[in-house]
């Protein structure tokens, strides 16, 4: 089996840790005496009011002093009292340890006294302080240079709910939360494969955000895994907010409005993507998983596509493609036809449109731009306001403002319909980042149509397609399976073939094991 650059990975981890460590002046090896250790830690305890410490003594006749340090609110206090302090103070048996020497003490505590699973030794002050700020509990003892780092972290998190942006009519209703540990568990629970690799990285010199890299070792392409890991390790900035930052930091094309990596809040979707040979990145503090590589086609697919029957999925996908085309082109087409090429409009419609526009004082281009600006303001307002207020604003803008604009002769009925259909189409797209992209591209198409009419509209689409074809997502052609044409993948493009016939993994996504299913089954 291929090992994904193991040595390199270890080196990178070390490098990453050292990068993330505190400034060099505090890189001391821990002294033996507790007082000396406390002298080093004291400045941090004074500066940070949420850093809590208390002294304790090990149980038995021969007292061995110790000190516990942790951050307030970051750990499970009950576990600290019952599983750590109680064990140490009542069951550590200092006299026994005294006979065997202090060197034995730390191993004894490590192996016999503490009934928590994740314990690690810490040897220097840097790592000790870092562990405290990472939310671990630190135990230091008099006469022992090593400290113990105990993981009983507990953070308040919201419950697992259905993601708002990716609601599905059928299928699982679970969504990711902001805790990366919970998120990885959600994926693990669905994908119990021994080859599922979950690598933990820490990114951000100061935020020290936990980042997880997931892939299935015998399916994912090793080159892409190495590439992604390298890119993650190269991130050297003081802080990242979540996967959104990582997305922007590792993408190849910064100026395009199109997202190069798909994000999802659904564990079932992540599982399916992993099975297709993709790599997933999750970060603490972000409920999104980043799917690498992603192709344009995948942004128009929803998770329930694979749950519904093929014909229904095909029907739904067809409408999503139509929605993208309408979202990008409808206002531009309206301008091109009404201002440049009215011959292309059927005569009955033309007369109706002309009569609707007769009292409007603005040219078509300006009318469209005004309505576009209004609708963007309404969308922005609705997003930021609480839900009931946002709905009210939507109703006011949609019905009252639209009707008033027509009555006042500031807009024609047709443009209200055009903008409404465009907005509905925009939000029919299943991916929020593609929604944003379509809004930007729409403005570009409007300008092209306003300047050059139908010709400009055609050139706009030509440029758009050229741009999409030129993009790559982690080295994978963004517009495949359409360009370059990958015929086997067409059965999961606009079409969605029968699951029983999808025996191979997508050709567009490089991988090691192309066979998904035996043909004789099902």
């Amino acid at each position, binding site marked *: 089996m291929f090992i994904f650059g193991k040595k390199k990975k270890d080196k990178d981890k070390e490098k990453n840790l050292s990068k993330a460590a505190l400034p060099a002046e505090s890189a001391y090896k821990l002294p033996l005496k507790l007082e000396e250790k406390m002298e080093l830690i004291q400045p941090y305890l004074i500066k940070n009011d949420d850093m809590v410490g208390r002294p304790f003594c090990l149980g038995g006749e021969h007292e061995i002093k110790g000190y516990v340090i942790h951050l307030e609110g970051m750990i499970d206090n009950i576990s600290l009292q019952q599983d750590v302090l109680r064990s140490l103070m009542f069951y550590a048996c200092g006299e026994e340890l005294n006979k065997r020497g202090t060197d034995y003490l730390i191993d004894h505590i490590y192996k016999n006294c503490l009934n928590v699973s994740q314990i690690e030794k810490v040897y220097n002050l840097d790592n000790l302080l870092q562990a405290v700020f990472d939310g671990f509990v630190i135990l230091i003892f008099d006469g022992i240079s090593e400290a113990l780092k105990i993981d009983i972290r507990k953070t308040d998190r919201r419950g697992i709910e259905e993601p708002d942006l990716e609601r599905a009519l059928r299928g699982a209703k679970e969504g990711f939360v902001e805790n990366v540990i919970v998120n990885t568990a959600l994926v693990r629970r669905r994908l119990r494969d021994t080859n599922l690799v979950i690598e933990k990285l820490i990114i951000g010199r100061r935020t020290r955000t936990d980042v997880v890299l997931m892939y299935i070792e015998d399916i994912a392409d090793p080159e892409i895994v190495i590439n992604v890991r390298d890119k993650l390790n190269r991130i050297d900035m003081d802080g990242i907010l979540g996967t959104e930052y990582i997305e922007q930091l590792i993408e190849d094309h910064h100026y395009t409005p199109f997202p190069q990596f798909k994000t999802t809040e659904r564990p079932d979707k992540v599982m399916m993507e992993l099975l297709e040979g993709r790599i997933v990145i999750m970060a603490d503090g972000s409920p999104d998983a980043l799917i690498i590589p992603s192709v344009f086609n995948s942004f128009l697919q929803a998770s329930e596509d694979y749950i519904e029957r093929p014909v229904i999925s095909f029907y739904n996908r067809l409408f999503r493609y139509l929605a993208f085309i309408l979202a990008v082109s409808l206002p531009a087409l309206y301008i091109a036809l009404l201002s440049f090429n009215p011959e292309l409009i059927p005569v009955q419609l033309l007369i109706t449109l002309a*009569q609707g526009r007769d009292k409007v004082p603005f040219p078509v281009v300006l009318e469209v731009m005004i309505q576009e600006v209004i609708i963007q303001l309404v969308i922005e307002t609705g997003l930021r306001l609480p839900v009931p207020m946002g709905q009210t604003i939507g109703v006011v803008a949609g019905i009252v403002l639209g009707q008033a604009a027509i009555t006042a002769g500031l807009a024609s009925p047709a443009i209200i319909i055009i903008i409404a259909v465009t907005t509905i189409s925009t939000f029919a797209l299943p991916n929020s980042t593609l929604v944003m992209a379509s809004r930007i591209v729409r403005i570009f198409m409007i300008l092209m149509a306003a300047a050059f009419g139908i010709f400009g509209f055609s050139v706009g689409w030509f440029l758009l397609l050229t741009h999409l074809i030129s993009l790559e997502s982690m080295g994978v052609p963004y517009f495949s399976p359409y360009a370059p044409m990958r015929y086997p993948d067409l059965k999961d493009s606009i079409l969605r073939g029968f699951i029983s016939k999808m025996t191979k993994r997508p050709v567009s996504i490089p991988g090691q094991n192309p066979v998904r299913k035996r043909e004789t089954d099902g």
Partner: protein
Amino acid sequence: MKKHLSLSLLFFVLLFVCGCWDAQDIEDFNVPLIAAYDLAKENGKEVRVTVLYPDVAQRNKELIEPVEGKTVGDTRSKRGTRFPSTLLLGHIQLALYGEKLAYQGLYSFIDNYVRNPRIKKSLYMAVVKGGSYEFLKEVHQNNQYLGFELPKVFSSKKKNQFFAITTLYDFAHAVTTTGKNPVLPVLSADKRKNYKIDGTAIFKKDKMIAIADMNETVPLILLRGIERCCGHIPFIITKEGKQIDKGTVEIASQRKVYVERKGDKFIFHIKLKINGRLVEHYTSERFLIKDANYIREVEKAVEEQIKRDCQKLILKMKEEWGVDCIDISRFALAKWRRELEDVIEDEDFIRNADIKVDAKVNIDCWGSGS
């Protein structure tokens, strides 16, 4: 500096290339639906172009604007001096030509349509008995939506009428192709100022030479073999000189032409394959036709009637019109192009040709109930 200069240059290039200067919104246009052409004066040196368009400002109203000029283009510039809006010619649905103008020839009046790529080549053409302006004015009094309705007479491909439907493309193609001659429907207004199709204009290239009435139009359309032409044909069955039944059949016809040559004589065999259904017959005791032989009688009656009408028309075509209005010359041209290319348009060619018609009627639906 160089970058700024390049960007400025690009901006100006885009600004001048930009077509937004040519943009004109639809409310600034008048959209003529019907254009009518007449001779303005008897000498034929001036033309009167009338357009009928819906008024954008006042809904439910159509306006008729006649303008006279030396040429069609001249009428357009004169129209600009009288009316504020620009004409959007791309939506003309129907072009009407006055009778006198049609006799003079239509070539110079379709030239502007053929040259303009914005004008659709599928617009319908018709000849109007009398003047087309007078026709429009008269008929419009009875029909406020004439601009939409009249073209629909042609566009909603009639299934129960035999009349010619000719588009600009068909006409231009026939005029410019050796061995072909166009026909146009003829419109007229009745006493109650309603429009009707009143026959077919026979053209020799772009010049009208005669008008066939509606009785002649049916065999003309059948003989021209217009694709999937269909309609209703009344029939009468007589026995021993006595009428025993009458009724109507709905038929669809297909034409096959075979041409042979005996010396200088060209013999055309036109075979009409007609399928249809019995729509009605008036003999009450035969409400349910159980005897299939009776249908054979109907078929025979229709066959004979069609043959008779076709031969009558062919005779008139050869003797009076002297032009191939049934579109058969091209079959001979296809076989003997080199010999016939120069003579096929001559009157003698069609006068000397032997044209035989055979009709085979098959009525497979007669409502027998079986």
